[in-house]
């Protein structure tokens, strides 16, 4: 039970506890109503019995020294008004039965007690309520001690009580059900802010470490504060490590550039082919390291900027145009022609210009890098009512049988890269930029023949 209470949801706990309370209240209510009503019913019977006995007492008289009574019609008929119970009576004067049922016992009363006396006893096989009152009737010489005893069975009382029990039970059950339903509602509304908070935190992107500012009830403020505090520290530590990486990459890049220049100079002076080969490999390794450092720096920059994304208005066609211009020289080295096909109406999106440039540069860089000389690369910008798409299509080696889903993870490179320099971060950067903008990076083989097709897709509905 305790375990259950600790691990079960707050809502279930609340409902459980409230229901138990409602059940207890219902039981208390039931018992109270029943006992009050039964007491009232029993009192009613007692009152009528007393009234009946009194009316008989008033009809006592003495005649020639004998106590006599003229039983009033109403004395017994009133007993028949509330129930169909059997009625017995006996009138005794100085121990002698005047009239009535001889075998009806006279309850023992204190001498001189005039108030009605009530007892419950067995008579003729049934439980009866008995009232007894005492009167003194003077017969001229002395006063006779007269007792009037009236008994009535309690069948009507039992009936009333069972009816009351049924009604009280029905009301108690109704009360319990209603209270339970209300407690369900109450619990629901009590935990609603928690749910809302949880949802708002869950809905956030993986990099969104901004503090929670939604309004929460007082009880949740410490939790929200703690959460915000924690996120702040997390963010600080992330920033620190990114800064560290950027710093490290930067520090590595500069000396590498020096090493490369030196190595080139030495390479030119070398004559022995094995020495030249060793140096070429050295230069390649340096290139690779330098590329890695550069990409790491970019990646750190992406991570940093996604935190506080700028919302510039960006025309995808303009962006693509600029990037193409930038990489034109590289393409020309391989005699690659870049064909630009842009939609007529401007494909406008909102986002961080620098990050977008970085993404587009990376995919165009890939296309040039993995295409053979004298091939054609198409950069296309399409705009429709629900999407804006920038695609880069080349006629290169394509992705082969690489797992397309894995190419976007860090440092992952395809198996067909041969000796092309790369770090495996380009698509990672593009992917993260797209995610930060609510768009998506889509990779597929070129549908028109060989090559690859990489698309940046922005859904307008979002």
């Amino acid at each position, binding site marked *: 039970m305790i375990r259950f209470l600790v691990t079960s949801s707050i809502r279930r706990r609340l409902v459980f506890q409230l229901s138990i309370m409602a059940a207890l209240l219902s039981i208390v209510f039931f018992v109270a109503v029943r006992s009050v009503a039964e007491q009232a019913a029993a009192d009613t019977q007692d009152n009528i019995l007393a009234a009946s006995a009194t009316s008989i007492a008033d009809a006592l008289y003495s005649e020639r020294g004998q106590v*006599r*009574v*003229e*039983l*009033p*019609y*109403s*004395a*017994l*008929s009133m*007993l*028949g008004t509330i129930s*169909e*119970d*059997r*009625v*017995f009576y006996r009138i005794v004067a100085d121990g002698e039965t*005047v*009239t*009535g049922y001889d075998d009806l016992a006279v309850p023992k009363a204190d001498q001189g007690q005039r108030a009605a006396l009530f007892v419950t006893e067995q008579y*003729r*096989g*049934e439980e009866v309520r008995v009232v007894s009152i005492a009167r003194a009737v003077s017969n001229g010489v002395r006063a006779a001690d007269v007792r009037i005893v009236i008994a009535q069975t309690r*069948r009507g009382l039992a009936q009333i009580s069972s009816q009351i029990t049924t009604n009280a039970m029905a009301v108690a059950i109704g009360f319990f059900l209603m209270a339970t339903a209300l407690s369900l509602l109450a619990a629901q509304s009590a935990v609603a802010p928690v749910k809302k908070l949880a949802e708002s935190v869950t809905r956030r992107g993986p990099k969104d470490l901004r503090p929670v500012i939604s309004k929460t009830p007082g009880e949740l403020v410490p939790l929200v504060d703690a959460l915000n505090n924690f996120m702040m520290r997390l963010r600080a530590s992330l920033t620190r490590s990114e800064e560290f990486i950027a710093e490290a990459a930067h520090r590595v890049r500069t000396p590498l550039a020096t090493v490369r220049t030196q190595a080139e100079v030495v390479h030119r002076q070398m004559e022995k082919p094995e020495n030249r080969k060793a140096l070429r490999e050295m230069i390649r390794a340096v290139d690779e390291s330098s590329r890695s450092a550069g990409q790491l720096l970019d990646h750190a920059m992406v991570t940093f900027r996604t935190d506080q994304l700028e919302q510039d208005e960006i025309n995808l066609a303009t962006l693509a145009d600029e990037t193409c211009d930038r990489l034109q020289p590289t393409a020309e080295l391989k005699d690659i022609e870049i064909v630009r096909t842009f939609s007529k109406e401007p494909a406008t999106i909102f986002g961080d210009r620098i990050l977008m440039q970085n993404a587009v540069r990376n995919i165009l860089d890939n296309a040039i890098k993995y295409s053979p000389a004298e091939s054609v690369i198409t950069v296309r910008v399409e705009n429709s009512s629900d999407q804006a798409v920038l695609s880069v299509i080349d006629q290169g080696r394509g992705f082969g049988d690489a797992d397309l889903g894995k190419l976007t993870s860090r440092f992952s490179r395809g198996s067909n890269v041969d000796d092309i320099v790369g770090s495996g971060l380009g698509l990672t950067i593009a992917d993260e930029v797209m995610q930060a903008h609510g768009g998506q990076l889509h990779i597929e083989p070129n549908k028109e023949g060989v090559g690859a097709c990489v698309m940046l897709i922005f859904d307008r509905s979002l």
Partner: protein
Amino acid sequence: MRNANIRSLFVGILLLLGLGSISYAFEIEEQKRYSGANAQQSLSILSTADIAVFEPIILAFQRANPTININYVTSGSTEVMKAIYKEQAQFDLVISSAMDLQTKLANDGFALDYSSEATNALPDWARWRNQVFGFTQEPAVMVISEASFEGLEVPRTRQELIETLRENPERFSGRVGTYDVRTSGLGYLFATQDSRNTESFWRLTEVMGRLDAQLYCCSGGMISDVASGKLALAYNVLGSYAASQIEGRDGLRIVPLDDFVGVMMRTAIIPVGANNPDAAGRFIDFLVRLGQHPELSESTGLPSIVDQPLPAGTVMRPIRLGPGLLVFLDQLRRETFVRSWASSIEQ
């Protein structure tokens, strides 16, 4: 007394026929056995209703329940009471016109509970404790011979009756009949209820006493004496009997008195010690559904229970079942009542 003769004659006949095989300690009037077509069980009924009146009901019941033999014994209501209360006579069903005595039997624990769809359909006032079941509603009326009232206004109320009797002593002397409340349970019931309902009851009794009223045990005798011209009027006769006996006779008239008409219910109970309470229950069901057999009401003259509120301003005074009926059965009360009545009627 006339009826005593008839009674002993009947008993004699029954004994001769060998039908009175069981002898009872109380006085019986008539007894008749009705064999069912394929009888497997028997039902013995003790009743205050004459065989002649009740036979159509018994036969109709037996047609519906051919497996039941019926032994029908009749007696006066006081004797019926005595049979059950004092002698524990063995009967399955007791039918009586004396509601008070039936109520006392039930109150004092001599009746069995019974309930069925039929009895539950009865109005509340027609049953008590699921032990006493009313199945007829019969008014107490006055029967007059029209010839005796020639030249006189027929009285419409008890007050007018008193005046008419007072003003014409020579015409009515010895020619007024009523129940002897000392011997007739039903007469006692009607008289005590009258005394409750009207101030004029005692004055009427007084006037009748002065006119040397004739006293009867049963409605039948009174009505035939009115028919024969021996009586000018019979007071407090069962309307149902009167209606069936008057039929076809000229010069008789039923006069309900307009100040009030006492209405009594014929009731049935199953006494404790009944051998066949199931069959008795079936008979009760049949009785309380008498309304569904209008031809039986017709032939017996017994009006069935009608579950209808009495119209406002009605003169009908139904006698209510309940402990109130025990009051006049109190020894002292009865003693006083009978004493006053006797001193009024016998002058």
